[in-house]
């Protein structure tokens, strides 16, 4: 890879690609860029909690049907707004790309659907706080997170009637992976997490002494009066846990096709650092193999990567929440709404005839303000279909135009290809240039090039 290719590759994986304002970074060394990414990530930028006077139970009880309906609508709107806020934040030039990307990664890993927006915001801010910290702290914080406690039924996990749901997913999906524990381990772990409840109103962890099983448990070969914290400790003592997370990290940040040598190396760094996520990620981004040609463009962008990426490049502003939600729903990735606790499968699963056409047409929809030719599937709670005629999206091309100001007209399309694509594409004399022939000003020509390039299947990979 050339230096520019390396930097772009890094920024696509550790973030959502470079924005036109970042063009000077093309000349940075990898070391400098990595240091900068981690430095920016140190400042925590939590998602803002929307102001909302949540009515008490008594107040809700005294409400009329219409008032209750309005309340539900308002809460749904808040949930949508929170989603839009986060996507806007991911695309913002003042956010830390790495912090946003890590938070998104862990959101997919600890996949959870929240009952209400305030639980969702709390959870995502908890994840954000630990996204580059200690994995042990992260797992513990998730185990005490209200949204997760409700989602995986730990609220029903009592000494008298243990509920195994959280214990099972903690091991199967969040830490060690299938095949490394027994059904007995699940039962014992569930006992250790009894009484780990949450307060629905406040969204806080609420340990209930009376529901907790203080008895002896035997878990992964150890015996003691374990509680949830001990269980997490024991799981993290197993080398399989580091390997499981390293595999996931490799497939998400490096290449969907696992490479055992590199995964083993990542796992070792992770385990030797007592599960320091930042150390692990730094190791990945600073490894030579990360910049190997075969990793470049090896990922199909997730809908969020696609949406945030195009938004950064074109300086998009979204006029309303629906314009941010609709693409997520129709492209198959709505944040805060993973398909199930296993998260989004990713890769080729993002692609079918409908999602591909929408992706290829997306730049056209923005540039030509064309009508949407599709409807989203309805949500079961709402009888109405997800109809939206037009997206309220505006582009600000000025920063991008600045970056190619000094480029000769003959080199424009190839320069833009290099900036926008993570795979090679020879645009000289291609249909991309053909389509721009009728453009009579430099700006129109650039716009035609952008439209062409962003309509390429090549634009869908990073």
């Amino acid at each position: 890879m050339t230096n520019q290719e390396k930097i772009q590759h890094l920024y696509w994986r550790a973030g959502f690609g470079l924005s036109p304002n970042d063009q000077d970074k093309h000349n940075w060394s990898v070391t400098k860029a990595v240091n900068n990414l981690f430095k920016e990530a140190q400042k925590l930028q939590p998602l803002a909690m929307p102001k909302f006077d949540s009515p008490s139970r008594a107040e809700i009880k005294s409400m009329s049907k219409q008032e209750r309906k309005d309340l539900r609508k308002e809460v749904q709107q808040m949930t949508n707004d929170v989603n839009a806020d986060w996507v806007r934040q991911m695309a913002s030039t003042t956010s830390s790309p790495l912090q946003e990307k890590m938070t998104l990664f862990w959101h997919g890993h600890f996949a959870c659907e929240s009952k209400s927006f305030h639980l969702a915001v709390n959870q995502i801010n908890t994840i954000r706080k630990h996204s580059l910290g200690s994995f042990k702290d992260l797992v513990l914080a998730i185990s005490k997170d209200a949204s997760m406690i409700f989602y995986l039924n730990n609220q029903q996990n009592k000494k008298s009637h243990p509920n195994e749901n959280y214990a099972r997913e903690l091991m199967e999906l969040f830490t060690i992976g299938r095949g490394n524990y027994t059904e007995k381990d699940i039962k014992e772990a569930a006992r250790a997490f009894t009484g780990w409840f949450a307060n629905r109103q406040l969204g806080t962890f609420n340990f209930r002494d009376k529901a907790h099983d203080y008895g002896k448990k035997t878990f992964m070969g150890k015996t003691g009066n374990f509680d949830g914290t001990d269980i997490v400790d024991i799981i993290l003592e197993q080398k399989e846990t580091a390997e499981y997370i390293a595999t996931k990290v490799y497939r998400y940040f490096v290449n969907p096709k696992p490479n055992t040598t590199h995964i083993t190396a990542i796992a070792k760094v992770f385990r030797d650092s007592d599960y320091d996520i930042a150390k692990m990620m730094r190791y990945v981004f600073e490894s030579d193999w990360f910049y190997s040609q075969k990793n470049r463009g090896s990922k199909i962008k997730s809908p969020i990567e696609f949406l945030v990426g195009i938004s950064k490049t074109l300086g998009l502003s979204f006029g309303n929440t629906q314009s941010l939600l609709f693409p997520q729903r129709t492209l198959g990735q709505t944040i805060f709404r993973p398909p199930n606790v296993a998260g989004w499968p990713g890769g080729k699963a993002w692609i079918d005839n409908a999602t591909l056409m929408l992706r290829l047409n997306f730049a056209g929809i923005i540039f030509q303000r064309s009508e949407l030719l599709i409807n989203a599937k309805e949500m079961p709670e709402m009888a109405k279909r997800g109809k939206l005629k037009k997206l309220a999206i505006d582009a600000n091309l000025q920063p991008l135009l600045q970056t190619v100001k000094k480029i000769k007209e003959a080199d424009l399309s190839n320069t833009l290809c290099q900036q926008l694509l993570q795979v090679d594409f020879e645009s000289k004399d291609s249909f991309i240039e053909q389509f721009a022939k009728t453009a009579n000003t430099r700006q129109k020509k650039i716009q035609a090039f952008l439209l062409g390039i962003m309509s390429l299947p090549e634009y869908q990979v990073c």
Partner: protein
Amino acid sequence: MSISRRKFLGQSALTAVGGMLIPSFLKGFDGRNTLLNNSSNKLVIIQFSGGNDGLNTIVPYQNDIYYQQRPNIAIKKSDVIKVTDELGFHPALKSLQGLYDNGDMSIINNVGYPNPDRSHFRSMDIWHTASNSNEYLSTGWLGRYLDKHNNNNHQALEMDDTLSLALKGIEHSGFAMSDPKRLQRTVKTPIVKALVKHHHDHDHEENVAYLYQTLANTVSSSDYLFEKAKTYSSSQSYPKNKLGKSLKQVAELIISGCDTQVYYVTLGGFDTHANQTMTQERLLKAYAESVSAFIKDLKQHNQWNDTMVMTFSEFGRRVKENGSRGTDHGTAGNLFLMSGKLKKAGFYNDAPDLTTLDKGDLIYNMDFRRVYATLLDKWLKVDDQAILNRQFKALSIV
């Protein structure tokens, strides 16, 4: 030699392979059973989204518990279309009575799965993937069918703009289309034409090749479906609602000899927590009238014996009505199979037992995957176990 565009598109999956790195997803084209399936039967799936109230659909009109538990929303005995000593149809299903009498309809009660989940998403997920309730699969049961027995890229067609999980496979997925004309508009653009040509002339790495291939397939399927949709225009009168429109489209494609084998249609709005009566009546009426028009259409064209319609919902609803003249999420529900060639018509099993409930919910005694297994094995004539990853006992209906 010049190859016409149409011909090229039609064959692109095969011809384009020659000069490029063959991605793994294409390799199967040689070895797999691609030319003919074992069966030319058509399967039409109608999904009721939101959880249809089974007890008010097939009504246990002799059951006192039913009337006790539902003082406001029970279907009056005098309104029920009585088909057995115990059970009858919701009056809105009137247009299906003839079908039932004719032996073209089979009703399966108490359909569900172990450890039922009362969340719409999760339960629909389970129905779509045919997983256990503590298991998470990222492919649908029809998607896995396509992965093993793919003939063409619109072999399973969802009449919608986006594709459901049920039709998602790993290497092959179903095709989503709500309107052939509209689809054709999105693929008949200069850029798409240029991309298809570019694909033909260049080699690409795996992911990019996959995207180009999906695009080429989309264009060729769109062309094909657009042509087929023009071949026959139904003279049958269908209700003007969305389901009626979709089923008319399906009938037209079937009658014009379209090589799609599985059609997937959704009717939503069944989440009747409040004021259920009006909503459910409207939906069931739309369903019954659309389906009966559809079947008339197929019968007139001698296609009914080769077509099977399955109707399901992600769960039934609680036995006891709630405080808003509605019902909350429940468990087991009923499932309908319709065809001109049923081996066993009428009621397949006993009515729901309202005396033995699990926390107020019906207890399933028919795993929905037995129905899937039956359809795969007996109707589509493929190895059901390879698709469902487990063995399920087939029903003697098909």
